[in-house]
């Protein structure tokens, strides 16, 4: 079933089966591409911080650009209180970005196109942000659900809406990334299939679409990583600086 556009998302195990307490934890192609992305990030950062030059070389410049980009993003959205969480958000942004980008390579696997991966990241962020909020503000953190300046008639309704929107954060965060990546890759595959089925006479139109879509997908890959990181910053901002 090479023509099935969903074929590219199948997970299959590589190497021996690893079972711990009855749970299958085998090394899969998903794990492999996570490893490739993480190794690429670490290699980039290693090469980028190896020589401490006053005038940076290209790879050092790239690493420093990533650093300043994420640092600016955090200070713009969450303020100076979010500084301790900078390494986490930096790692998150780099990991999502590189998983997306590695996924753009032909024959590769897109880790972030799986709902389970994005959901775990989103749930971790959601739970961590909630815990941080309660640690910083105690039960006063619950006032995030009660916006000020709302007529008392509307207050119960608004509070319910706020609670629902708060609880749907992990879902929206994870589904946004997963759906974007899956839809883009499926579309690329569909157009690729058209190129093959229409042949040398009619295949040029879908091919040009495919080329344009590849550019778009690279943009989406960056944008979704950015959105994921910046939403994390915004949630963190809500937890750190409690005001509504």
């Amino acid at each position, binding site marked *: 079933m090479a023509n099935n556009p969903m074929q590219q998302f199948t997970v299959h195990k590589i190497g021996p089966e690893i079972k711990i307490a009855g749970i299958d*934890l085998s090394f899969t192609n998903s794990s492999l591409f996570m490893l490739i992305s993480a190794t690429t990030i*670490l290699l980039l950062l290693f090469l980028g911080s190896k020589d401490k030059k006053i005038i940076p070389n290209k790879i050092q410049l790239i690493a420093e650009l990533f650093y300043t980009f994420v640092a600016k993003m955090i200070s713009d959205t969450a303020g100076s209180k979010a500084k301790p969480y900078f390494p986490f958000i930096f790692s998150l942004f780099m990991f999502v970005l590189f998983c997306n980008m590695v996924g753009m390579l032909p024959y590769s696997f897109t880790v972030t196109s799986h709902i389970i991966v994005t959901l775990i990241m989103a749930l971790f962020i959601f739970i961590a942000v909630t815990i941080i909020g309660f640690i910083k503000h105690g039960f006063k953190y619950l006032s995030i659900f009660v916006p000020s300046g709302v007529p008392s008639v509307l207050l119960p309704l608004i509070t319910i809406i706020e609670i629902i929107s708060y609880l749907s954060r992990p879902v929206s965060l994870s589904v946004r990334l997963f759906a974007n990546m899956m839809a883009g890759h499926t579309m690329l595959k569909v157009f690729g299939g058209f190129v093959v089925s229409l042949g040398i006479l009619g295949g040029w139109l879908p091919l040009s679409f495919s080329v344009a879509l590849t550019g778009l997908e690279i943009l989406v890959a960056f944008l979704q990583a950015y959105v994921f990181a910046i939403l994390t910053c915004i949630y963190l901002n809500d937890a750190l600086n409690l005001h509504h």
Partner: protein
Amino acid sequence: MKSSLSFLVALVATCTRSYAAEAGMPQLDPTYWASQAFWLIFIFTILYISISKFYLPKIKDNLDNRENKIKEDLDNASKFKEQSEAKLKEYKSILENAKKEVTKILMESKKNLDNDIQSKKVLIEKEIDSEIIKAQKEILDLKKNSISSIQNIAENIASKIIENLSGDKLNESSIKATVEDISKNNIGKYL
């Protein structure tokens, strides 16, 4: 919470297994969910620890170093600029003073020279005057002497001429008186 979550997962799994088989959405096939979760947490933890412990501090150090270096260099540059401006001012003032001194020295030397010339002139004039007076005296002396010697010569010549012409010796005193008389009459003509 945990049981409800696992129930949800099981429900989704049973609901989607048939769907996944039909439409082929491998994301909803829970076979490798645990594996993906495990490897995600494992790899991300390693990534996070190595980034936060090794790489970010290094990059931060490097950025800080650069910023400090730029700041230092800028400070130094402004310092040097101030210094050079001060030096320029000093140089200008020195130049001005030198110019003033030069004009002063010029004026003084001119004055000195003038004074010197004046005094020397006076001295030389005095000397010249005294020399002139001396010379005049000498000339006068010479005149007086010459008159008496001329008279003697004239007397001698006169007596010799008379002797040669007449052969007699005339009274010397009379000759002297005559010569004197003549020379007195004519002395204004020649001297």
